[in-house]
């Protein structure tokens, strides 16, 4: 999907005036966020800035103290389960694979529940998702406890793709992974976005992911959110944003961005 199309597309997800409080602390202070169809949006912020809570609010797992979330024009809490399953796919931070099911069964579970396709057909479709997620087909009969960290993320990604969601939510997709595996996941995210046209929303600490993969970045600072392309955010006068995008780690990521955007 090219840049102009991204600009024109209307938001597939929009949040208005989200407020979340924990005790007296206001984690989110009237946050507005639009996610455009077909883009990759990164959400970042310091530890404890409420990134995961925001993600849970957007997918309707957490009810905000005030504000509303619309997915494809409908309030998230009023979308029925079947439709929601086809609309959003979520990769949880620890994978959240069902430990009593094999990887293939994990991927087939939503299909088994929501369609009446024959088993052989479900297996074929699951094999495609597993391959799309870059998970080795011969390991699909393994159980989650037998997988390494990177494999867990790929298996969980395959399950998130099971019903061809329009929006993919990724919670820390590259955390706890070695740099090579992490950049493999980064590439995969871009491939899925370009190939299947899925809108992707990433919550991450990983500067490389933010700067090389994401079309736009949303930074959560002091309960407020600042959204924009990285180049624009880098010129921000907010001290936290400035430090975040100009620290030593950010510089290395910026270099990676230059080289990756050059080749794209």
């Amino acid at each position: 999907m090219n840049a102009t199309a991204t600009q024109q597309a209307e938001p597939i997800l929009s949040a208005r005036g989200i407020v979340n409080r924990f005790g007296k602390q206001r984690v989110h202070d009237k946050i507005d966020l639009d996610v455009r169809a077909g883009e990759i949006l990164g959400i970042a912020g310091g530890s404890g800035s409420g990134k995961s809570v925001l993600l849970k609010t957007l997918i309707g797992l957490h009810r905000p103290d005030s504000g509303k979330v619309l997915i494809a024009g409908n309030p998230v809490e009023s979308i029925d389960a079947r439709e929601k399953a086809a609309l959003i796919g979520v990769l949880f931070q620890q994978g959240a694979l069902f430990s009593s099911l094999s990887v293939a069964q994990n991927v087939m579970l939503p299909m088994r529940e929501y369609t009446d396709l024959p088993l052989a057909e479900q297996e074929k479709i699951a094999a495609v998702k597993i391959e799309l997620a870059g998970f080795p087909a011969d390991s699909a009969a393994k159980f989650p406890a037998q997988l390494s960290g990177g494999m867990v993320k790929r298996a969980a990604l395959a399950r998130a793709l099971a019903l061809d969601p329009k929006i993919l939510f990724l919670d820390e997709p590259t955390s706890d992974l070695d740099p090579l595996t992490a950049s493999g996941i980064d590439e995969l995210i871009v491939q899925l976005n370009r190939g299947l046209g899925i809108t992707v929303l990433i919550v991450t600490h990983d500067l490389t992911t933010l700067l090389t993969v994401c079309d736009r970045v949303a930074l959560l600072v002091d309960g407020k959110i600042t959204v924009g392309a990285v180049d624009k955010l880098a010129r921000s006068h907010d001290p936290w944003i400035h430090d975040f995008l100009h620290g030593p780690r950010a510089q290395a990521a910026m270099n990676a961005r230059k080289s990756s955007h050059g080749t794209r």
Partner: protein
Amino acid sequence: MPGASVKSSEPALTIEGEGDRRSLDGVLDLRTLNQARPALQSWRKQRKSHVLDISKLRGLDTPGALFLCELRDRHVELAGVQPEHKALLELIGGLQRNVPARPPVVPRWRELVIRIGKGADDFWRDSVDIITFVGRIVSALGHALAHPSSLRVASISRQISEAGISALPIVGLMAVMISIVIGYQSAAQLRRLGGEEFTINLVAVSVIREMGVLITAIMLAGRSGSAFTAEIGVMKAREEIDALHSMGLQPIDLLVLPRVIGLVIALPLLTFFADMMGLLGGAMISHSLLHVSLPQYLERVRSSVEIKDLFVGLVKAPVFAFFIATVGCMHGLRVRGSAESVGRETTRAVVKAIFLVIVFDALFSVWFETLGL
């Protein structure tokens, strides 16, 4: 799929055309696939050459694309492919699409043989494990008794409070209930023989010799034995046990001994409490069923129960406690990796602890019989 809007209604797909040519109109996705597949496959088998026009296709998802790729592999020509569908078809067509082999089906008789063999092997390993673990605890206990200052008094007293004091209400209630049950049953039977007043003897002796300690031990196996497995198991799963080892500390000394000692102290005390509550239950039933007054009841209890009966009941308690705590801790330390295994080990620990309690109770019965107690 770009620009696809989300529809709330069920998508529709119609198949039109005749002869070698068919055209798809609508949405081909997970929901319409089941309807399209049989029609198109029978069409494919009837004809020699096929053209499928998909120019009117409005939506296509990966299962739909997979189906179209399979048709294309079987020499169905796809016509009028739109650019946004082309990318998806190329992506799916470019995959290997190997369906992983299902695990081979083992015949039932072999499965049975395998299960019996595994069961026997597990039983052997379990027995060896318990014996080894008991040995380790006894050695640690011996060391601790030789150096009493190394005993963790705070930790032991916390275990006594958790396993003992907080179990008082439930253990007391159970003891009262059990003696009411025994009282009713024996009164009904003894009435026929005309020896209704022997109900008191039966309740008092059975509660003090057997039921008090057995009920308390089974209660603690379910309450504290499972808690030991879960607590230590979660520590094991979170690498806290490894952290202890890395600091040169022994989980046996830090975690297992306080629990074992705590339970060995708590269970006899609880048993005594259960005995007293059982007698209270006996008094209640004598009053309401046999119309025996409290002084008469106490006199009757004193004449029927000897001090050795109390001893027979109480002496079993520390042994039961030792095995409940040992099995609980051992299964906690056997947890591997996942949270799932915490649940499995907890179940095993409770089942095994209750089993051992009853086995030892039977052994004690035989032993006391030969001793003439």
